[in-house]
């Protein structure tokens, strides 16, 4: 560390005493336009090749630049356009250039370090870049959904159809069992929290048989708060070879979000109004009883309650209710209003201010997701040396997701429907009251009443803000030294209530009817980072040296109070007869130092990077020890290539990242109570004071090829990721007074392939077709396991149905279940001693493909995205509910439950699917028409009709192959228990730019 410090000081000294002077120079004026249209391009960057000299174009696309004497090459770039080099002979002082659109993203700038980027032409890693256009093609409830099908190597799965999010992103397979398993989100340099907090609905569903919030509460991960419309682009570092710069938070990959900034040029006002609706996209189908005899048979078989027997059947006017349609048939009126102002002042101020008001209704009456967001991104230039920026986003969301997922009280609508024959009327009576469900099998529960009387509001207030400054310490012709400092805060407060009044039938079976849960969380993440970047440009090479520090902390406090025996109408938990309280707190701190060298040479063909990030964290056993995360990479643009191939780049990158332990360091004292006096003794879980981060090393190699004059781009990547020092729970000899301990040990090795093929098969003035196809596959294997094989601690319903299992030599995503019987009994059942425990297959998909096609016919645009997941397994426990006689197809249901009884894994199903994720048709109003609108102030206007998740093709018999009863979990997320059904979303968008 001392060495790094002295290095930093010497860089500072260099900056202080460096003199600045230009040799002979001249001025060059120019104008940059868009190819084909002659429209001026503002904010394009102009630089003199081989120097640090540069400037930007103004509103009219014009620039003036001081250029060294003699011939020079000007490099002209702008985000979204292909770079262009213009030769300026010694005597020329006026130039004109036009740029073409970079539809295949051949030349975006990709992240290489905390403070540095490189053009994707030279990048040594496969970094997926998603532009705002690609991201927001079809409106979405949350950001994660908008990424589905667009990122090769990312498995993005939505946990339930309930409004308001809950989506898991896994990059390049499973990379941890007991440490954190989701990617890191970074917005404008601020590390953003993506934790999931339970609302405590377990108190009424008893899914975890507990009074306290649990993993089965259908939680939402908080990346849902981010407003996708504010995003300029997203870069996805998929593995440690690229994410090494994020040290011990980089193992699971990093999602780097850059929001829109103001830019020079005419101030634009952009307003989009969206209207939409949703409809249930898949139903299970419920049984219709044809005769009283059929009803009697099921009563006799014990499948339905005698209280819902022949008398009720005969008395029913409607003998077959489609409960799914009646209950989930709400077609909500959804809307999003998005407005933004973007521009710059002559005084060097840039601004981007945006607002969002969003309402998404659920399929059930009274379920909804409301979100409002307000963003202000400001930048200010002081002279030529100092730039300051402040970005803030204030978000509020209010969600009511109703009741879904596992339950043990009969409260879940699908549980109720699986125990109530469809001739029972459950809908609201004419007088406003609700009929009591006669079925005691489901606790007399009436979901229609619950939807009216049970409230589950979840309020989130969130502030994400950052301030940054960049100061040019040195700006000479061939070198520059910049200092930048950035601080950010992400703070949110989560307030959830579950109010289940004593008037609900479901409460009346309780000893203390009337339940309230009040859970509150406050989470604060703050980080500060500073860096020095030195760039030296010679004719032979460009060398970029950067070094700096990063510091962050996270404080969290989650409190939940559950009250039982509350009077109807009361929402104060202290009024309860019995109160249960729980609290969890956490503080962690983190500090890192980094240094990196990037070297571009051989006529910009060879790009070499070496860097190291040294870091310590309070989560580690030794909080003062710095752990090093090195990386090396090289890319080479091959000079000798066949004709028709424009560009061929070979790349190889190695990097190491870590995953901090989430606990396990300390031996806590456990509370024991004797005769009402509380005492403490050491917990039987022993602390491991030496606990250290899991380490992930990845080697990634590949090639990028451009052909047909930039009309085709192929990117192929192969990687090997090795996770070592896995944090595991080891059993220890109980005679020591302890039974288990977290240890470091074990290894997972993942191999994978990712391909991206971008094409513009047609590119004419009035007609174009842009196509993007992605392919990704990966398989992770447990190659070392120093503890006995185990079922991971993340939720499952046991091997009778199927669970994840960690065993050396097996895939980490293997699914284990009882499948087979040594000897069947005379009645066709399998005694527990005879059941055969087996590995039934791989729960993860074999491969995933995304097909995106975008057609433009003059003003009309048609775009589609198809997401294909081949292979994979899910466990459809929902079927187990309905196989008791109330499924639509009783023959299939009976066959399945008989097979299950015979010891087969009858509820394990293939979960591969093809989904039409996005479809949109847009129409650009002709300029003539637009100019007639809003007094001619409108620049352009567009109307779009779009849909999300419009169609699904799958063999999976459940509602949706994506669901996860336990929400996000590293392993075994495939449990389908009476989920909230998925919906199709439809939107009409009117977008106007002024």
């Amino acid at each position, binding site marked *: *560390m001392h060495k790094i*410090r002295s290095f*930093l*000081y010497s860089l*500072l000294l260099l*900056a*202080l005493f460096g003199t600045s002077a230009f040799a002979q120079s001249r001025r060059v004026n120019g104008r940059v336009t868009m190819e084909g249209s002659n429209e001026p391009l503002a904010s394009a960057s102009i630089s003199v090749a081989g120097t640090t000299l540069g400037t930007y174009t103004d509103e009219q696309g014009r620039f003036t630049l001081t250029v060294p004497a003699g011939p020079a090459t000007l490099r002209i770039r702008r985000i979204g356009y292909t770079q262009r080099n213009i030769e300026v002979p010694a005597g020329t002082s006026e130039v004109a250039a036009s740029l073409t659109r970079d539809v295949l993203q051949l030349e975006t700038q990709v992240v290489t370090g905390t403070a540095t980027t490189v053009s994707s032409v030279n990048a040594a890693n496969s970094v997926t870049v998603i532009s705002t256009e690609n991201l927001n093609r079809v409106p979405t409830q949350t950001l994660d959904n908008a990424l589905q099908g667009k990122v090769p190597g990312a498995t993005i799965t939505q946990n339930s159809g309930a409004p308001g999010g809950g989506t898991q992103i896994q990059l390049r397979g499973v990379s941890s069992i007991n440490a954190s398993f989701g990617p890191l989100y970074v917005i404008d340099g601020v590390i953003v929290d993506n934790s999931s907090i339970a609302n405590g609905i377990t108190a009424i569903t008893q899914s975890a048989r507990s009074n306290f919030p649990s993993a089965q509460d259908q939680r939402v991960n908080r990346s849902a708060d981010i407003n996708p419309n504010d995003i300029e682009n997203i870069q996805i570092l998929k593995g440690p070879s690229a994410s090494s710069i994020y040290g011990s938070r980089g193992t699971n990959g990093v999602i780097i979000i850059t929001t829109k900034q103001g830019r020079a040029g005419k101030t634009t006002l952009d307003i989009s109004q969206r209207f939409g609706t949703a409809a249930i996209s898949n139903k299970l189908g419920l049984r219709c009883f044809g005769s009283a005899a059929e009803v009697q048979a099921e009563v006799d078989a014990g499948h339905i309650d005698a209280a819902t027997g022949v008398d009720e059947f005969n008395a029913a006017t409607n003998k077959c209710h489609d409960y799914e349609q009646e209950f989930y048939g709400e077609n909500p009126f959804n809307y999003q209003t998005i407005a933004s102002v973007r521009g710059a002042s002559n005084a060097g101020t840039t601004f981007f201010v945006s607002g969002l008001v969003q309402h998404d209704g659920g399929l059930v009456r009274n379920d909804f997701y409301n979100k409002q967001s307000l963003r202000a991104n400001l930048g200010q230039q002081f002279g030529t040396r*100092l730039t300051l920026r402040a970005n803030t986003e204030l978000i509020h969301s209010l969600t009511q997701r109703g009741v879904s997922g596992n339950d043990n009280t009969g409260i879940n609508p699908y549980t109720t429907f699986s125990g109530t024959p469809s001739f029972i009327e459950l809908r609201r009576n004419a007088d406003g009251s609700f009929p009591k469900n006669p079925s005691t099998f489901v606790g007399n529960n009436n979901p229609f009443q619950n939807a009216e009387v049970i409230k589950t509001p979840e309020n989130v207030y969130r502030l994400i803000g950052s301030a940054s400054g960049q*100061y040019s*310490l040195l700006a000479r012709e061939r070198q520059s030294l910049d*200092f930048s*400092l950035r601080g950010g805060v992400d703070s949110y407060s989560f307030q959830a209530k579950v109010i289940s009044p004593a008037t609900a039938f479901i409460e009346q079976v309780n000893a203390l009817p009337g339940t309230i849960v009040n859970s509150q969380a406050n989470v604060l993440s703050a980080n*500060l980072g*500073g860096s*020095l970047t030195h760039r030296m440009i010679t004719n032979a090479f460009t060398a970029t040296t950067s070094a700096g*520090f990063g*510091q962050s902390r996270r404080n969290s406090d989650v409190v939940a109070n559950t009250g039982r025996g509350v009077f109807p109408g009361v929402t104060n938990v202290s009024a309860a007869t019995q109160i249960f309280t729980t*609290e*969890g*707190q*956490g*503080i*962690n*701190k983190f*500090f890192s130092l980094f240094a990196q060298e990037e070297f571009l040479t051989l006529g910009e063909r060879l790009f070499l990077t070496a860097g190291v990030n040294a870091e*310590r*964290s*309070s989560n580690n056993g030794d*909080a*003062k020890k710095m752990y090093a995360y090195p990386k090396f990479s090289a890319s080479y643009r091959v000079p000798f290539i066949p004709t028709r191939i424009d560009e061929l780049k070979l790349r190889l990158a190695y990097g190491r990242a870590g995953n901090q332990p989430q606990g396990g360091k*300390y*031996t*806590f*004292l*456990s509370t*024991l*109570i*004797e*005769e*009402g*006096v*509380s*005492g*403490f*003794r*050491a917990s*039987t879980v*022993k*602390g491991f004071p030496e606990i250290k981060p899991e380490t992930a090393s990845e080697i990634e190699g590949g090639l990028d090829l451009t052909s047909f004059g930039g009309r085709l781009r192929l990117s192929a990547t192969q990687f090997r990721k090795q996770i070592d020092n896995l944090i595991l729970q080891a*059993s*220890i*000899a*109980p*005679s*020591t*007074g*302890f*039974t288990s301990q977290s240890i470091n040990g074990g290894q997972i090795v993942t191999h994978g392939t990712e391909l991206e093929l971008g094409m513009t098969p047609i590119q004419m003035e009035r007609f174009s077709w842009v196509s993007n196809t992605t392919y990704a596959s990966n398989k992770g294997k447990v190659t070392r396991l120093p503890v*006995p094989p185990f079922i991971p601690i993340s939720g499952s319903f046991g091997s009778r149905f199927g669970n994840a299992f960690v065993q050396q030599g097996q895939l980490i995503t293997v699914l284990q279940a009882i499948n087979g019987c040594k000897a069947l009994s005379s009645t066709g059942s399998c005694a527990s001693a005879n059941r055969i425990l087996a590995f039934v297959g791989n729960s993860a998909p074999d491969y995933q493909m995304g097909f995106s096609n975008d057609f433009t016919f003059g003003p009309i645009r048609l775009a589609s995205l198809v997401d294909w997941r081949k292979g994979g397994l899910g466990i459809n426990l929902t079927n187990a509910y309905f196989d008791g006689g109330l499924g639509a197809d009783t023959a299939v249901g009976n066959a399945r439950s008989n097979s299950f009884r015979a010891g087969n894994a009858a509820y394990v199903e293939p979960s591969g699917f093809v989904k039409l994720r996005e479809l949109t048709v847009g129409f650009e109003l002709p300029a003539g028409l637009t100019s007639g609108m809003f007094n001619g102030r409108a620049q352009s206007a567009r109307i779009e009709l779009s849909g999300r998740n419009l169609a699904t093709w799958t063999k999976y018999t459940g509602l949706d192959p994506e669901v996860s009863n336990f929400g996000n979990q590293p392993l075994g997320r495939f449990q389908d228990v009476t989920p909230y059904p998925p919906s199709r979303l439809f939107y009409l968008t009117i977008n106007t730019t002024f």
Partner: protein
Amino acid sequence: MKRYSTIALAVVLIAAGCKDNPITNPIDAPTVDALSGGLTRISLQQLATGVTAQDRAAFGSLAYLVLPAIYARDVYRIDASEPRFVSETLGGNPDPGSFAGGGGFTDFFVAIRSANTILLALEKPDATQFSAAEANAARGFFRTMKALDYYRLIELRDTVGIPIQTDDPSAVTDIRCKTAVLSFIAALLDSANADFSAAGGSTALPFTLPTGFTGFGRDYNQVSNLVRFNRGLKGKVNFYRGLDRTAPQPALFQTAINELTQALGAGPGAVPASQLPVGPYYRFVPGGSEDFKNPRSDSKIGLNPLLRDSVQAGDTRGAKIVSRSTLTGGGLSTTITLAGAVPTAANEALPIPIMKDEELVLLRAQAEIEAGQLAAATADINTVRTANGLAPHPVFTSKTAAINAVLYEKRFSLLFEGAQRLVDLRAYGRLNSNFFRRELPTDPFNAAMPIPRGELNARGLTTNPACTA
């Protein structure tokens, strides 16, 4: 100037980053590290409660309280959903991986670790918190509790042996044979007694024990009474060391007699009937956040039907046996149960003695029989008999008759109160088909539990290792 201030700021920030204290202490719960800062009276109270509560948890487990009583053929537990209470006791061997073979182990070692942790923290007691006498009293108490838990462990494991914990929490030590373990326990009790001597009899513990230790005729917060508890347990240990079947030490019978006399404060025939139930007890608290019910209060429990026939006419202890609805399963059947096992609110809270004077009187009688002091033995046996409504025996002339008599008294005085009967049957070599019927055709006459699977796994073993002397 601006440039200098920016750089100065940068340097300050980087330096501040390096200086920032990286350690965050957990704030949700205390850790064992909290003890290294020294004990206060409040923390010692909490830790002491931790030890007594854990000891109660270990005692009150089905594995300690119920399984030995089944092995001793006094009790059945018949539960269709848990057939192993029969199949791994009277119907077959216990599986070291199940609760039946693996129980009654971890909980005691956790209690011992808790006591060891406090003993370490007490090595340098804060003089402003505790007087030297109080610190000695506390040490004596925790050593005595450790001895009690080791004794319970060896009651269950017998000749299989058990490991002895050291201060190093990661040390996995050899499995020591019963003879060595008993001698270790005896030494531990003596060192505790030395602590008590150093403290002085009039000293009180620097914390308050649960009311089970104070509400049954003697206040064990007083060192003088803790000495009686300590000596009682020592006498018990020494008696069984004397009777040890692999390495008998007859010289210890007289030592045991002396220690038990010290514990009882009266010689043979001189212990008043009113003193017999005196001793430390476990109290149970059903409901609330504590919710610890007396585990005997259980509808699945019955008594061996032979028990009713064994009760002598006029024995007031016969009231402990009551009729119940027929309990059948696994080849066993009974229509009687312990009065205290009927699931009622009162029984859920019924206390159980840790060691009452009645047991000590009978232990002294056992030691006297072995020491050839049959008159004294008869006097002690008769103390218990007359207190329970029976006529006194004339002085025994036969050792065997005296043993039979004392075993009858112990069986009904201590019925379903721990592993005493199992220990006696083993010690006298009676746990076999010469003395008892086979309860089931496959009855293996289980005498001890194996080393649990978890312990074997951690040692890389699959079967019980030979114990070391």
